[in-house]
């Protein structure tokens, strides 16, 4: 018996009971639609996270001090060491590192910020003049501080858009004086909004010369550099730039074994990798939840196939009497189950893809930060083969039952 004949028999059997066949197919259709849609949402979230991280600058490299060890050798936590110095920054900037554009030191300080009766909290970042270039900030108003400001510890700050909104409202901030931890600072510039969301807004920043931060804000902690930020020439050269920075710092710190380094590097690419693995896990969980409905659809197919086999016992008897072997009957009913599930799967893929495509045009979804679903070809292929496999799996038992019927008893069945 060839495949064409088997398909023709299956089509005949399914068309004999149109309503029942369509309802059974609906079970698989809904399951596949759910899988396609939820996996698309997971993919969409992944794409969205990637885009956000890319907006932070794909070519940025962070250098942190290693975990400081206490006297007993117990690690005191990430970034607690104080192994980085201004001389390290200068070395990266002056020594041969063709893939590094520039490196800047960062000294972080928290502190209450007040302007008139308004007060607000934002981290204050002490750094040098290359900050806008390395971190890719544009100025909306005023100007960034100069080398002279850094050398002379001038009390000047440049604010991010969020800070301006919270402190000044409609007042022009340029030339105004604000207080950070009760010290006065003059506002000389405002950054253009970077528009990123999540991961701590890129617009919630206060930037001042690093010498000023050391002198007025970090107090007793002294001239601490909490991290060095460097930018590579492009996203593609990040790995080479990391190697160059590592070589320079190991050499400067007199460490020969890279595993013993008293600093560590992290690039946006590393963060991207982590975020992607989280998004992949999310997609898998969503897919698995949707997969449950596919199993339910499969049980529906098994149920209907058992009913069909009972109803068509006499037909099975006739077929056996005129020469059908067990395998012929088995194949006939298996194909019937697989056509049901495969057709349901194909329709489910169509409906799921359509819904994923139309979702962004629903106003409620468009106005929220809900990710735009992205249907991947691999999930479509997978969904189709899984639905056919479900037909095979849940069709085996009923088909086998049909194949094992005794011809005489089947012929006598009323």
């Amino acid at each position: 018996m060839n495949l064409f004949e088997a398909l023709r028999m299956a089509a005949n059997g399914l068309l004999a009971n149109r309503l029942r066949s369509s309802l059974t197919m609906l079970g698989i259709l809904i399951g596949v639609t759910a899988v396609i849609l939820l996996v698309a949402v997971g993919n969409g979230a992944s794409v969205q996270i990637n885009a956000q991280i890319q907006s932070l600058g794909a070519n940025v490299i962070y250098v942190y001090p290693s975990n400081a060890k206490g006297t007993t050798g117990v690690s005191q936590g990430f970034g607690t060491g104080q192994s980085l110095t201004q001389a390290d920054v200068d070395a990266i900037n002056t020594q041969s590192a063709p893939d590094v554009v520039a490196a800047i030191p960062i000294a972080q300080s928290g502190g209450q910020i007040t302007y008139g009766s308004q007060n607000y909290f934002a981290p204050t970042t002490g750094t040098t003049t290359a900050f806008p270039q390395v971190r890719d900030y544009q100025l909306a108003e005023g100007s960034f501080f100069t080398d002279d400001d850094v050398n002379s510890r001038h009390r000047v700050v440049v604010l991010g858009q969020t800070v301006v909104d919270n402190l000044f409202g409609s007042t022009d901030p340029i030339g105004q004086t604000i207080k950070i931890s009760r010290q006065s600072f003059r506002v000389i510039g405002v950054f253009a909004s970077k528009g990123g969301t999540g991961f701590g807004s890129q617009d919630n920043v206060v930037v001042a010369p690093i010498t000023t931060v050391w002198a007025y804000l970090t107090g007793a902690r002294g001239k601490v550099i909490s991290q060095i930020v460097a930018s590579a020439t492009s996203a593609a050269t990040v790995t080479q730039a990391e190697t160059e920075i590592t070589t320079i710092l190991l050499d400067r710190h007199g460490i020969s074994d890279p595993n013993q380094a008293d600093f560590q590097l992290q690039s946006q690419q590393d963060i991207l990798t982590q975020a992607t693995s989280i998004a992949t896990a999310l997609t898998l969980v969503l897919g698995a939840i949707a997969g449950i409905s596919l199993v339910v659809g499969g049980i529906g197919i098994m149920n209907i196939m058992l009913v069909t086999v009972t109803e068509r016992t006499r037909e099975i008897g006739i077929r056996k009497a005129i020469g059908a072997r067990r395998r012929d009957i088995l194949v006939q009913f298996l194909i019937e189950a697989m056509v049901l599930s495969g057709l349901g799967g194909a329709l489910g893929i169509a409906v799921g893809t359509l819904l994923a495509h139309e979702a962004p045009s629903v106003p409620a979804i468009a106005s929220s930060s809900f990710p735009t679903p992205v249907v991947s070809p691999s999930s479509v292929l997978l969904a189709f083969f899984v639905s056919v496999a479900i037909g095979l799996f849940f069709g085996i038992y009923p088909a086998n039952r049909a194949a094992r019927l005794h011809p005489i008893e089947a012929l006598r069945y009323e």
Partner: protein
Amino acid sequence: MITLERITKTYRMGKLEVPALQGIDLHVGEGEFVAIMGASGSGKSTLMNIIGCLDVPTSGRYLLDGTDVAKLSDDQLARIRNRKIGFVFQSFNLIPRTSALHNVEMPLIYAGEGSRTTRATVALGAVGLADRMHHQPTELSGGQQQRAAIARALVTHPAILLADEPTGNLDSSSSVEIMRLLATLNTEQARTIVLITHEQDIARFARRVVELRDGRIVRDEKAV
């Protein structure tokens, strides 16, 4: 063509053993037209099932066209039914919602043979149903359905045609029509036919009558 030697069949109903056939010796030669008669419970249905390879005997030897079929597997029996036996049933047993033509093609599909449509068309023509071959069973009269069933039985050129009460569900004029068709097939095409019936009128079309009672052959004579 058919040789049965000391065939017995015993059914087990719980602890009770019910003998249906108690030693049947029968030979049917090529081109014969045999009617097997008997009251209900005489064992004629059991005998038909064994001759039709739908069932295997408890003991004894059954040679069909030279093959001992008493101890074949299910799939081997299916192959014998497909190639060597053509069934005609009392209740026609055509597959529903399937055209007469496709019904007749069915044994050829299971045999995996080619030029099915041509051969099925020829077989339907031979039973006088050429103009109705695209009709479904429900659109055919009883007599027409039985003709289609006969065409299906003959399409694989089997060694024997096995007809189990072929006129049981037909009115008298259709019955005569069908019996004439069978008789013609026997005389003109030398088909070997085994007919199971309990009606004297029907058995008269055969050229040899075998009568069963309580699982034994009690009469075996050539018709005049």
